[in-house]
């Protein structure tokens, strides 16, 4: 006898577990793929969210997103320990920069991580520089003199020389080539600048420079250093503006007139360092930073120093981004429950297949006296071997590829890994149990009552959850687990319904006249009626899969439509022009452009002082022409409602107020600039008229009662003639509106929104979910048929002995799944259609679509295609499975009759 191991319990279990390598491999693959996708998705979502956040931050100007403080006066000179400044600046600026660096060491780590090296500059107030010779034809120029301790690292002098500190004589400075050209300033030329207090300052251009790196974001803090700006005042000569650099060590000159100096300090926001995962803490840290002023010694004429308050739009942008991130997380979690549930069904089917293979061994072991615990333990160990290895392999691979972190990454892998550990012993012991008769599972009245109770409980829970979600009675921080699980609950109710309906319908079919239906019509429904165990899996897969697919498709359509209508609402017309200032001529030429049907300018917009009995506010006053705006916005669903009351004369000034303002006012009386106003209508706070959120719109005829300047148009809404090309007209209109004008069309705004990585990421996930549930559905249906193959083939062998032609056999296969699928499909569709109506109002989607209105639910063009698509997938799966099943079992059928029970 050989020395081969006389197998001990472990050896036998291992041998037993390796007898069906294909099935084991299949279960392994399902676990691994589920774990992989489950582990990779959080990383993908987190990355998308981070990208989306960075995208939003990137879209705001650096001067706005950086943390900027400004104060009148100059920094106190001093050297500092190690400020890292160029040699020429250390002596004067070192102390201040050191102070900023030291302060940043005390920042919240989340904040410190995203802030770059602090910067400080001092500017002598912009003032016109006059040529020494009057009317010599030099262009009018307004010069801002800047002292920047680090400027020498950013510019390279190409002509002349760098400015030096001077004891006597004109103050030296350098300009960029384009600015020097625009100002007509020759190197060596001296001009004079009048300063407050009768001081006249002479300045001399010593050199012309070029930027070392023109794309450096730092230049955003010196907008007219690289290229000149232009101020136009009606008929007067235009004024060229620009920033010139004086020698930073020469700050003493400026310090002599602190009332004319503004020192600006900023910590640049390093957008690439922002991460969505910690965005909440970051925004909080930012707010705290803005709220607590920094103390830095400043030489100023003010007696009382308030400290430096650093402000930025970044926390607002991040907070807005967070609502988008949260709804995306909720949505992904919600959608992921679908594929996950079906994957677990597939996994359970796979373990059932394995369990069936183990049945003879289990029965044998039981008969030989193996305890239930031992048998369950061996199966659980096998499940653990499959689940743990596959879950770990897939999970780790997914984590590495997805790059996500946090416990959420391990959630799905753990679920997938645990499923076989639980399902294998459970199904193994179940299938090994001797049943009296395989075709008639005995269900006791107690079991039936239990099932009914469980179903009623499920329906009750689903109904309660739906009511809670729809009524919006709950306010949950972050992702609401109720919203996330609702789709699964609804789908589960759908399953219960289907599973109740199918036997009922089958019984009807069975009872119907048997003579007309022939043999198959008799056997098909009879078998389908009696194999309920096999029905649960495909029903669950179809209902959940179809529901999630329909929901995903409808949701994508809803967001898409929401973006379109939000863009339309944001632009407010076919084209919107924003310029610095539009004169009457320009307005007229806009109205005359070919393709333009009507124009509606915002004649004036002014930040005004408003009072309520309870508080003081600032309110933006927009001056419009009611008739013009009505005409331009005619037929637009997002049009601002303009009641006729706006045109009334006498009494309180009639205005339309933004919702935000109206909510604030309540039933109090609003007084603007001393005049009581009458709010005759309200409108969405975010409006095409301007960027303010608390505003009133007043008709031109009454505008003079609230504002002194009633004509300073900077925004115009254009209505185009039918057939006019918005892109072409927008371009024409932009050119007609002077320099710096911007034209927006709904399409251009929509495009901008669609560039948000969160949106493309979400669409990818929705599509991925549809594909995943379709694939899993096919697997589930296929496996169900393969599982049923043994008993089917036995019956087919019998039937063919009775003379059933082989070509009729597929009908038997179809009968096995068709009734369940046919009932489940519409139930799934119904659940899927109900979902967006229930879930969308519970999620804040404004972050995705822009605007502030929750988008209305749309089903979109693709949704109706989901159903035939799934039907096709199911039919394909049935065909393939029937073929595979016949192949697999043909050889085994006769031998296995006894063992299959």
């Amino acid at each position, binding site marked *: *006898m*050989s020395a*081969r*191991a*006389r*197998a*001990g*319990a472990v*050896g*036998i279990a291992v*041998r*037993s577990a390796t*007898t069906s390598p294909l099935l084991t491999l299949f279960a392994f693959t399902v676990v691994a793929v589920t774990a992989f996708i489950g582990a990779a998705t959080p990383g993908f979502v987190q990355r998308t969210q981070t990208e989306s956040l960075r995208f939003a931050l990137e879209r705001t100007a650096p001067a706005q997103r950086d943390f900027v403080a400004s104060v009148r006066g100059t920094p106190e000179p001093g050297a500092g320990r190690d400020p890292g400044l160029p040699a020429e600046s250390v002596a004067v600026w070192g102390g201040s920069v050191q102070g900023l660096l030291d302060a940043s060491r005390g920042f919240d780590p989340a904040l410190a991580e995203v802030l770059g090296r602090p910067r400080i500059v001092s500017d002598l107030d912009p003032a016109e520089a006059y040529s020494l010779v009057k009317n010599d034809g030099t262009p009018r120029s307004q010069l801002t003199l800047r002292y920047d301790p680090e400027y020498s690292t950013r510019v390279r002098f190409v002509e002349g020389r760098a400015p030096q500190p001077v004891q006597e004589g004109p103050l030296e400075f350098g300009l960029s080539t384009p600015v020097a050209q625009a100002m007509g300033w020759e190197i060596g030329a001296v001009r004079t600048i009048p300063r407050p207090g009768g001081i006249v300052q002479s300045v001399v251009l010593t050199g012309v420079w070029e930027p070392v790196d023109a794309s450096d974001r730092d230049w955003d803090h010196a907008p007219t250093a690289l290229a000149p700006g232009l101020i136009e005042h009606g008929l007067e000569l235009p004024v060229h503006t620009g920033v010139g650099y004086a020698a930073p060590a020469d700050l003493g000159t400026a310090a002599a007139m602190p009332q004319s100096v503004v020192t600006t300090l900023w910590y640049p926001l390093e957008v690439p360092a922002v991460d969505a995962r910690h965005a909440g803490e970051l925004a909080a840290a930012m707010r705290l930073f803005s709220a607590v002023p920094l103390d830095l010694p400043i030489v100023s004429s003010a007696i009382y120093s308030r400290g430096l308050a650093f402000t930025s739009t970044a926390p607002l942008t991040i907070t807005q981004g967070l609502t988008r991130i949260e709804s995306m997380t909720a949505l992904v979690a919600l959608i992921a429950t679908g594929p996950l549930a079906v994957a677990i069904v597939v996994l359970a089917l796979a373990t059932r297949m394995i369990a069936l293979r183990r049945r*003879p*061994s289990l*029965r*044998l*072991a*039981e*008969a*030989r*006296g*193996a*305890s239930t615990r*031992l048998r369950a333990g061996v199966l659980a160990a096998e499940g653990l071997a499959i689940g743990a290895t596959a879950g770990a392999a897939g999970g780790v691979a997914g984590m590495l590829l997805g790059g996500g972190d946090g416990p959420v990454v391990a959630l799905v892998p753990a679920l997938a890994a645990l499923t076989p550990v639980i399902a294998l012993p459970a199904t193994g012991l179940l299938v090994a149990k*001797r049943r*009296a*008769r395989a075709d*008639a599972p*005995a269900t006791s009245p107690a079991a039936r009552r239990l099932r009914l109770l469980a179903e009623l409980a499920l329906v009750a829970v689903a109904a309660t959850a739906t009511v809670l979600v729809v009524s919006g009675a709950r306010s949950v921080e972050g992702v609401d687990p109720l919203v996330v699980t609702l789709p699964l609950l609804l789908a589960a109710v759908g399953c219960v319904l289907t599973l109740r309906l199918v036997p009922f319908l089958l019984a009807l079919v069975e009872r119907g006249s048997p003579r007309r239906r022939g043999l198959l019509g008799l056997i098909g429904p009879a078998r389908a009626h009696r194999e309920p165990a096999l029905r649960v899996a495909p029903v669950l897969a179809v209902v959940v899969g179809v529901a999630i697919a329909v929901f995903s498709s409808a949701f994508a359509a809803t967001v898409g439509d929401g973006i379109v209508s939000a863009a339309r609402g944001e632009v407010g017309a076919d084209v919107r022009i924003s310029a610095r200032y539009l004169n009457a001529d320009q307005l007229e030429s806009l109205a005359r452009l070919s393709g333009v049907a009507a124009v509606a300018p915002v004649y004036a917009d002014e930040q005004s002082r408003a009072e309520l009995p309870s508080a003081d506010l600032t309110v933006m006053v927009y001056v419009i022409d009611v008739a013009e705006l009505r005409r331009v916005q005619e037929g637009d669903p997002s049009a601002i409602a303009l009641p006729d009351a706006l045109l009334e004369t006498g009494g309180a000034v009639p205005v339309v107020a933004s919702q935000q303002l109206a909510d604030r006012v309540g039933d109090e009386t609003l007084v603007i600039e001393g005049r009581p106003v009458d709010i005759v209508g309200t409108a969405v706070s975010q409006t095409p008229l301007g960027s303010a959120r608390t505003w009133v719109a007043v008709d031109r005829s009454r505008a003079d009662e609230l504002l002194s300047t009633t004509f300073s148009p900077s925004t115009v809404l254009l209505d185009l003639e039918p057939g006019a090309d918005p892109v072409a007209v927008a371009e024409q209109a932009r050119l007609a509106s002077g320099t710096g004008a911007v034209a927006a069309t709904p399409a251009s705004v929509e495009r901008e929104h669609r560039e948000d990585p969160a949106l493309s990421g979400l669409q990818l996930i929705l599509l991925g979910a549809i594909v995943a549930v379709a694939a899993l559905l096919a697997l589930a249906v296929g496996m169900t048929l393969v599982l049923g193959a043994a008993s089917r083939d036995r019956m087919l062998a019998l039937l063919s002995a009775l003379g059933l032609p082989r070509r009729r056999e597929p009908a038997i296969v179809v009968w096995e799944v068709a009734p369940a699928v046919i009932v489940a499909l519409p139930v799934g569709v119904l659940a899927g259609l109900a979902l967006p109506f229930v879930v969308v109002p519970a999620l804040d989607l404004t972050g995705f679509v822009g605007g502030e209105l929750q988008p209305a639910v749309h089903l979109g063009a693709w949704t109706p295609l989901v159903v035939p698509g799934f039907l096709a997938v199911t039919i394909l799966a049935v065909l393939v499975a029937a073929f595979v099943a016949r192949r697999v079992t043909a050889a085994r059928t006769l031998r296995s009759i*006894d*063992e299959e029970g």
Partner: protein
Amino acid sequence: MTVDTAEAGPDILCAGLVRIFTAQGVEVQALQGLELRVERGEMVALVGASGSGKSTLLTILAGLDTPTAGSARVAGHDLVAMRAPERLEYQRSSVGFVWQQSGRNLLPYLSAAENVGMAHAVAGVVPRARRRAVTDELLELLTVGDVADRRPDQLSGGQRQRVAIAVGLANDPRVLLADEPTGELDEATSADVLAAMETVNRERGVTTLIVTHDPAVAEHVDRTVRIRDGRTSTETLRTTHVDEAGRSVRVAVEYAVLDKAGRMQFPAEFTQALGLRERVRLSLEPDRVEVRPGDAVVPPPEAGRGRHRAASDDGERS
């Protein structure tokens, strides 16, 4: 536990055993008051038509099923009162079995020796150190030692059943149950396997109950119990004696079985021959009981013959 090894009583004792299967409201009475007694070390064959309840009985005796009513004691265990732990103990060490299908006896992916090892591993009755020796000894006893490392599909049908017997005996049970162990085998191989069982019964003193409908089996055993409709109907006892010519002759005598309540079953040919139906007349004679058709007033002339069927003519040499 109520194991009573010192008990001198029979190893298998069934009284009034009833097993009713219920499936969707339809009741099948597989056993209807079966009586069976097998003494320690005895080898008994159980015969009967298909569906008469033989497998049902064996499944109960193997501890895999419980009777609906009646009592069953095997090797000192009360199979009815037995709880789960005792049942496991019983299956592990008191009883071994061999079924007709090798799929129920042997794991296809284990070798013959490993299958015996698996029985050891599951039961944990035989000490680890002795398992290997026990395995070799058993396989040798059943003349399958040379194929110990082959898997079932590499064995002949006869070898497979002999390995199955070895597995059944792995934990040295007091009782061996076999349900049609030769059902799938040809005549010659059947004889081999039965001979092996006889050897085991003789050499190890294992109480053996073999279910079969193979008449050849009956020739190997001293006692054959026939069951009909879930009840023990007749018993045949065989004895070997040497006839006048010095030849060894086996004599079989068939007895009807009377249960505790005094009931007995008539063989069909008896009732048919005399047209016994519904009511019969019984009369007690000094040495026998007479049964006559109920409508016959006058006793038939031949009625004096007792129910003996000496069958010396169908005997055979051993």
